[in-house]
């Protein structure tokens, strides 16, 4: 029995998978899912890592597998592509708003405090709790915050 499913259904399904380290956004939001297609009834999903050493990446792949199989999809393959390399340019404005609402300054060359919008900020460390974030401090409201590094 082959279930009739479209790529749209798959995209919707993938949008329900949160990033394990930043659950406010999904793996689709972050641009990790690069392509979804069917070839002769076989589903092919192409994903790309954010940082080459990102420890969450293999977990994301497992999550995709788990979600597909829960939905009864068994005829699939997951490809990993490296080029073009992942960039924060693949995040749209809606995604950036989601990041900001969860207290993370979205990728930008002009970093602003996600609490008070002040641009009077300073870097505490270029390397934050995950590979994709840097640690900042707001000089106006004095709150520390993460900036999603622009790459």
């Amino acid at each position, binding site marked *: 029995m082959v279930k009739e499913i479209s790529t749209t259904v798959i995209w919707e399904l993938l949008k329900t998978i949160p990033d394990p380290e930043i659950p406010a956004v999904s793996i689709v939001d972050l641009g990790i899912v690069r392509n979804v297609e069917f070839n002769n009834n076989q589903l092919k999903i192409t994903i790309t890592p954010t940082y080459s050493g990102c420890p969450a990446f293999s977990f994301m792949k497992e999550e995709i597998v788990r979600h597909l199989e829960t939905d009864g999809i068994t005829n699939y393959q997951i490809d990993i592509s490296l080029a073009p*390399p992942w960039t924060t340019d693949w995040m749209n404005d809606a995604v950036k708003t989601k990041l900001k609402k969860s207290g993370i300054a979205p990728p930008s060359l002009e970093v602003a405090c996600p609490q008070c919008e002040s641009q009077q900020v300073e870097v505490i460390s270029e390397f*934050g709790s995950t590979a994709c974030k840097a640690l900042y401090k707001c000089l106006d409201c004095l709150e520390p915050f993460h900036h999603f*590094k622009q790459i």
Partner: protein
Amino acid sequence: MAKDSLYKYVLALGDDALILGQRLSQWAYRAPFLEEDIALSNISLDMFGRANLLLEYAATLKGNGITADDLAFKRNERQFTNRILFERPNGNFADTMVRQFFLDAFYKLFLQKLTGSKDEQLSAIAQKSIKETAYHFRHSSKWVIRLGVGTAESHTKVQSAIDNLWMFTNELFEMNEIDNEMLQQKIGVDCSSLKQEWIKIIDEVLAEATLKRPENIHMTTGGREGIHTEHLGHLLSDMQYLQRAYPDAKW
């Protein structure tokens, strides 16, 4: 034959990244302060990620069911072909930062060239890695400057780190038979052509840091041929312990 050369070329690049990643991971829980602990762990992870991409590629080139883990955990010291600077001990914080600074500056130039490789997989790995290296370089070069213009003690320590590590830098620009073959096939990089530019980067940072570049130092080599310093064996015995004691153990 050509495939075997490509395998050896990719493996050597993977060994460089793996050994440096392992070295940096030895700072976890030991760095001077929390932010730096996190920074060094992050850079270590990037290097492990780079090593993983390269060793997985090497494993597919080798075939016979060989995996990246086999390459990382089941080879002996003499079979590792990382260049010596990558295996140098962490020493004090200045020693680690100078090693990183020399290597980040090298990677910046090397990866830029490698993005133009005719080999699609190597080019893709280079495109990915170069973005990370830009961050690493900013971090390590800033530290070299901060230590250079910091206190008299930090200045002395960072200068002596430079003096002690300098003898391992020339190996970065050497070309062996495999390098030449890969260069000829437009797959590999002409490392010897990077030296001048590298010196320029080093000089700019050292000038700002009020530090001196050593001259007339005897240069050592051998890593690419499997001839290492006594430190690599200790690193491997730690890194490979689990797989040696419990072969094929999985998480």
